[in-house]
C-alpha cells in the first residue's frame, strides 16, 4: 500500500520535530562544554600569552562576562545564523576556520564510503546468496577481522606497505581536488582505503544479514515456488528489497566517517575537521572545540534525518507509528 501524501507529510513533520529537539539538546551540551571547564577557560586558552588586556578583550569578545542564561540565548542565536564566535587561539572566526577544513574531510569521507560500497555490496550479497559455503565463511571471517582492527593501525600498516616498503604512494599531505586532481587522488588513496576498509567490514556484515532476511520472506518463497528462475527471484525480489537497508547502513556509515576520521586524519596529516578537533583539544581552544563538535554533530543529525526520510519515501511498508 502506497502512503498518502498526508501520511508522508505527518511523518516528515514528526521526524523534523524530533531532530529539532535533539538539536536543541546538542546546543545545550555544546554550550555547557565551556562552562564545565574547571577553572577559567580563557586563562587556560591564553596560556603563556596571558596579559590583562588580552584577557579582558577575549572575555568580552566571547561573551563569557555575561549571565549564563543570556550567554546561552546569544550563543544559540548566533549559532543559528552561522556565527560561532572567534577562536580563543588565533582570534579568527570559528565558522571560517571550519569551512576551510570541511572540503578535505568531505572528500576523504566520500572516497571512503565509495570504496566501502564497492567492496561491501558485492561481498555482502555474494555471502548471503552462498550461505554456509566456503566463500561465505571467508567473507564472514574477513569482515569480522576488519571490524576488530583499529583504524589508525590499519593506516600505519598501509603506510608501511605502500609508502615505506613499495614506495608507491605518499604517506601524508593534502592537495585540494580543485587544484590538482592527480595529486589529490594519490594523497587520498591511503587514508581513503583506511577509512573504506574498516567501513566495508561493518557494511558487509550488515548487508549480508539484510539480504538473508529478505530471502527468507514469504514472497520470495512464493516467487520461487511459482517456478521463477533463480536469477529473476534474486534480482527482482531479493536485491530490490534489500536496497533499503543498504541505503540505511551507507548513510549511517557516512555520518560515522565524517565524525570519526579524527585519528585517521592525524595519522595521514590530513588537514580536515578531525585534525582541527584534535589540534583544538591539544591547544585548549574551547571556542574552536565547541564549533567543530557542533558542526560534526549537526552533520551527523542531518544525514540521519536524510536517511530516515529517504527510507520512508523508498519503502512503502514503513510503519509510521
Amino acid at each position: 500500500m502506497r502512503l498518502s501524501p498526508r501520511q508522508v507529510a505527518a511523518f516528515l513533520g514528526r521526524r523534523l520535530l524530533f531532530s529539532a529537539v535533539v538539536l536543541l539538546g546538542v546546543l545545550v551540551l555544546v554550550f555547557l562544554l565551556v562552562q564545565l571547564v574547571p577553572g577559567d577557560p580563557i586563562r587556560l586558552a591564553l596560556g603563556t600569552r596571558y596579559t590583562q588586556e588580552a584577557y579582558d578583550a577575549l572575555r568580552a569578545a566571547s561573551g563569557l562576562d555575561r549571565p549564563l542564561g543570556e550567554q546561552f540565548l546569544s550563543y544559540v542565536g548566533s549559532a543559528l545564523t552561522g556565527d560561532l564566535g572567534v577562536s580563543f587561539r588565533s582570534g579568527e572566526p570559528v565558522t571560517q576556520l571550519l569551512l576551510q577544513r570541511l572540503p578535505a574531510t568531505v572528500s576523504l569521507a566520500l572516497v571512503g564510503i565509495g570504496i566501502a560500497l564497492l567492496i561491501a555490496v558485492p561481498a555482502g550479497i555474494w555471502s548471503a546468496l552462498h550461505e554456509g559455503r566456503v566463500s561465505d565463511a571467508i567473507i564472514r571471517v574477513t569482515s569480522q577481522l576488519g571490524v576488530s582492527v583499529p583504524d589508525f593501525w590499519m593506516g600505519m600498516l598501509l603506510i608501511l606497505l605502500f609508502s615505506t616498503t613499495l614506495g608507491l604512494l605518499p604517506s601524508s599531505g593534502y592537495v585540494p581536488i580543485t587544484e590538482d586532481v592527480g595529486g589529490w587522488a594519490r594523497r587520498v588513496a591511503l587514508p581513503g582505503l583506511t577509512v573504506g576498509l574498516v567501513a566495508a567490514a561493518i557494511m558487509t556484515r550488515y548487508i549480508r544479514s539484510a539480504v538473508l532476511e529478505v530471502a527468507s520472506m514469504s514472497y520470495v518463497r512464493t516467487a520461487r515456488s511459482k517456478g521463477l528462475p533463480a536469477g529473476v527471484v534474486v534480482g527482482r525480489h531479493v536485491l530490490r528489497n534489500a536496497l533499503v537497508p543498504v541505503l540505511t547502513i551507507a548513510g549511517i556509515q557516512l555520518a560515522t566517517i565524517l565524525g570519526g576520521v579524527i585519528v585517521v586524519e592525524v595519522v595521514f596529516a590530513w588537514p580536515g575537521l578531525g585534525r582541527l578537533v584534535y589540534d583544538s583539544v591539544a591547544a585548549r581552544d574551547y571556542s574552536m572545540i565547541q564549533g567543530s563538535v557542533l558542526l560534526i554533530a549537526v552533520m551527523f543529525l542531518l544525514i540521519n534525518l536524510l536517511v530516515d526520510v529517504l527510507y520512508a519515501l523508498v519503502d512503502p511498508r514503513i510503519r509510521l507509528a
Partner: protein
Amino acid sequence: MSATTEQTAEPTGRLSTVRVLATNPVTVVSAVVLAAVVVVALLAPWVAPYGVNAVDVANALQPPSAAHWFGTDDLGRDLFSRVVVAARVSLQVAVVSVAFAFVVGVAVGVVSGYVGGVVDTVLMRVVDVMFAFPVLLLALAIVAILQPGMATTMLAIGIVYTPIFARVARASTLSVRNEPYVQVARTMGVSGRSILGRHVLPNITGPLIVQTSLSLAFAILSEAALSFLGLGIQPPAPSWGGMLFAAQGFLSQAWWMSVFPGAAIFVTVLAFNLLGDGLRDVLDPKQRTLIESRRRR
C-alpha cells in the same frame, strides 16, 4: 557430554546455555584467548622480562630476537615487556569504563522502560542527544573539559557507552514489562522496586551480557585511539595506543614498533567481538530462534 549427571543440581536453563556455548569452537577459542590475555595482564610484573621504562640506549631499535621477543623501541626499552604491561592498563580502563556504562545505562534504561510516561520521554531524549555525537568526538570533548589521564579516560569512555546500555536495557524491559508473571506480581501488590529487582533484571541479562562483551571490545579501541592522540593514558605509563603513536616516527626503521602493539589491540578486540557474537547466538532469544530455525532448514 559428561555434564549430564550433574544436570539435576543446576537450573537446566543455565547449564544448557554453557553447553551450547561450548559447542561453538570459535566462542571457546576466543574465551581461551581472552583468559590468556587476562592472566598475562594480571601477572604482568612477573611475565615481563624487563622493566617497562628500563632505558637501554645502546640497544635502541633492535629487531625481534631471543633477548627481545618483540624488539626494542627508540629508547632501547623492551617492547614485549611494554606490550604485556599495557595489556593490564588497557583491560583495567575497559573494565572500569564498561562497568560504569553498564550500571548507569541499565539503571536509566530499566527505570525508563518500566516507569514510562514523562520520565521515559525525558531520559530517552537525553540518550538521543548523546547519540548525536560520534563516540570518539564525545570522548575527546570530555577529555578537553577534564585533564587527560587514566581516570578521565575511564570516565570519558564510560559516559560515551552509557546510552547504548540504556537503550538495550529499555528495550528488554519493555518486552518483559507486559509478561504475565510481571503483571501478576503487580496485581498482587509487589512493590515496583522488587518487581524490577526480582523479575525484570534477571530476565534482561542475556542482551546485556552480549552488549557488555561487545562494549569491552569498543572500549579497548576507544582507549587506544585516545592514547594514540596523546589524550588518554599518559606516558611514562605504557599503553598500546601510545606505543603506536611513538612508532609513527620509526615506520621505515622499525616495523616491529608498530606491528606488535597494534596486533595486541587487534587480537584482544577480536576475541571480545567473537565472544560477543557467540554469546548473542545463545543468549539473545530472538537471534537464537533465528539460528535454530536456520539450522533446521
